């Protein structure tokens, strides 16, 4: 177990380092003098000079990267030009909001997608299967920001059941927090549910046609017992690995969903930063997102490890 973990960790570290390099290199895309671009709207020569000094812009690129990543490792991701706050502090403040949204959305995606995939595979070729496939195709093809807008139109504007926007921290009022988060979480979970359904269906079909399922049926087990005892665990292996890749879609989608519902999370922080040319914040958020994504995949690997006895024992 520990060896497996360390081995995975060893492959992850170079990926994180390379990703951080890519994120740092984004700066090079800025047209013209980065110091002027970084100085925001007012091109005060003093500010430009200060920025040039502060970000070591006179040094070659690798040296600047070393300064930047050194700072990041000490928890210093630079300062937001607009908000005059350390980027790390902003991220720590906004991260829990996005995390709550992501966790709720993933829970919704799994609760909808997995049972639908199982049913669709078990009733392969029947009405149930077609219905599930149509729902999945619908989920995959609906842009989540549009779905968000339509649901606001229905539940907030027309019916008045749920707030259209406005975030309430759970520590302040849990009920109001859930009321504000349920629509965004559903919107975000919707397309991922479709992907989960497809993965689950494919994995279940594979398992259902396997020889050991035939053995289980030859023992006289009922269809229900065959599915529960022999299929679900084996089908969960590919669903976990493929499902983990959806964390990326989850983080991307969170950004749009937060924008639609005005939720002050990571996505809102990044979009606001993009428009205010607050590049240190953009880099910080992207770096954190990438790191989170990689860590979530590591966790999924461990879950995969736990359900797969072949890996566990050897």
């Amino acid at each position, binding site marked *: 177990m520990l060896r497996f973990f360390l081995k995975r960790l060893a492959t992850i570290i170079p990926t994180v380092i390379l990703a951080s390099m890519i994120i740092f290199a984004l700066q090079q895309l800025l047209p013209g003098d980065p110091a002027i671009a970084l100085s925001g709207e007012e091109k005060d020569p003093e500010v430009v000079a200060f920025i040039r000094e502060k970000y070591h812009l006179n040094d070659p690129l690798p040296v600047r990267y070393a300064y930047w990543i050194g700072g990041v490792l000490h928890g210093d991701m630079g300062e937001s030009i607009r908000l005059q706050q350390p980027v790390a502090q902003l991220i720590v403040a906004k991260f829990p909001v996005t995390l709550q949204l992501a966790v709720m959305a993933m829970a919704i995606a799994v609760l909808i997608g997995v049972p639908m995939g199982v049913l669709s595979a078990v009733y*392969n070729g029947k009405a149930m299967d077609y219905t599930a496939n149509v729902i999945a*195709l619908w989920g995959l093809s609906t842009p989540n920001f*549009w779905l968000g807008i339509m649901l606001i139109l229905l539940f907030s504007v027309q019916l008045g059941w749920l707030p259209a926007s406005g975030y309430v921290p759970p520590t302040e009022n849990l009920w109001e927090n859930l009321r504000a988060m349920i629509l965004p979480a559903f919107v975000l979970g919707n397309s991922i549910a479709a992907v989960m359904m497809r993965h689950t269906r494919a994995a279940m079909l594979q398992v259902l046609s396997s*020889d050991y399922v035939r053995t289980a049926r030859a023992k006289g087990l009922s269809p229900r017992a065959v599915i529960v005892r022999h299929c679900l665990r084996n089908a969960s292996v590919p669903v976990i690995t493929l499902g983990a890749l959806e964390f990326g879609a989850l983080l991307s989608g969170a950004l749009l969903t937060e924008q639609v519902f005005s939720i002050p999370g990571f996505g809102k922080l990044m979009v606001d930063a*993009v428009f205010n040319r607050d590049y240190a914040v953009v880099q910080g958020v992207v770096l954190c997102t990438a790191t989170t994504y990689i860590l979530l995949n590591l966790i999924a690997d461990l879950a995969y490890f736990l359900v797969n006895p072949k890996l566990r024992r050897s």
Partner: protein
Amino acid sequence: MSVLSSTPAPPTAPLAAPLAAAARERSPLEEALRRLVRRRGAMLGLAVVVLFIVVAVFAPHIAPYDPTATSWLAVRKPPTWEHPFGTDEVGRDVLSRVIFGARASLSAGLVSVALAVAIGLPVGMIAGYAGGLVEAALMRLTDAMLAIPFLILAIALSAFLGPTLTNAMIAIGLSATTIFIRLTRAQVQSTKVEEFVEAARAAGATPLRIVLRHILPNIMPAILVQATLTIAAAIIAEASLSFLGLGQQPPDPSWGSMLNTAKNFLSQAPWMAIWPGLSIFLAVLSFNLLGDGLRDALDPRHRN
């Protein structure tokens, strides 16, 4: 329990031989086309895709109004015979804007995927065929890019490139490149050990010739399927970027930016949000249908 999928080993035997014999009577391409045509979903998808392309190409002839012409006399008018989709917050005809918006969405989908294939295919082939250190380096870089979620990378790229439709296409294309690098590499790796490639190598063909003449035609179906499905994702990505204000800039119409504006007038003018969104949904759905159908038609193993 009813399981339609592949039968367990002994029962397949009576099926496999005669069915393989039947397949040999038609060429693989004919066989694939026959399967594609038989899938109603794929044909419907293709029809809608063609419809959207026609609308985009002939937009100036089809649209009843100038999509950017404002009219203070017709602000946020609900759908009428005169304006079937209603008008927006400055009196522009929503139908005309939806029609012209097809141009931004479709060109973004096609151009960005073309860019992704143009970079991803050669890089993936080099990685897959060369192996060794070259492959290791390229794949590490790909992994690192994949670690940044697709849309986040696209947003970050267009943030630094500047908000224009062209930059949005570049950003989406670059972000999608990794998909094609990985796919091509995997396909090349599995194809290059097959007998016909071994035979070509034994016959003294150069690596370049082997890749272009023997491997490329064999991996094209997989690339085509992935490209079709990626166009769907790219259309959503363009709409997302435009929705955030990072793609098509006003007053030029795009479905995403129309939704961004519509969001502010939901209670007063819901029609402003319905039509552009529905168009994105239909375009994406039809590319998805077509892609799924192509996959089933070109790769029978994948059918289930």
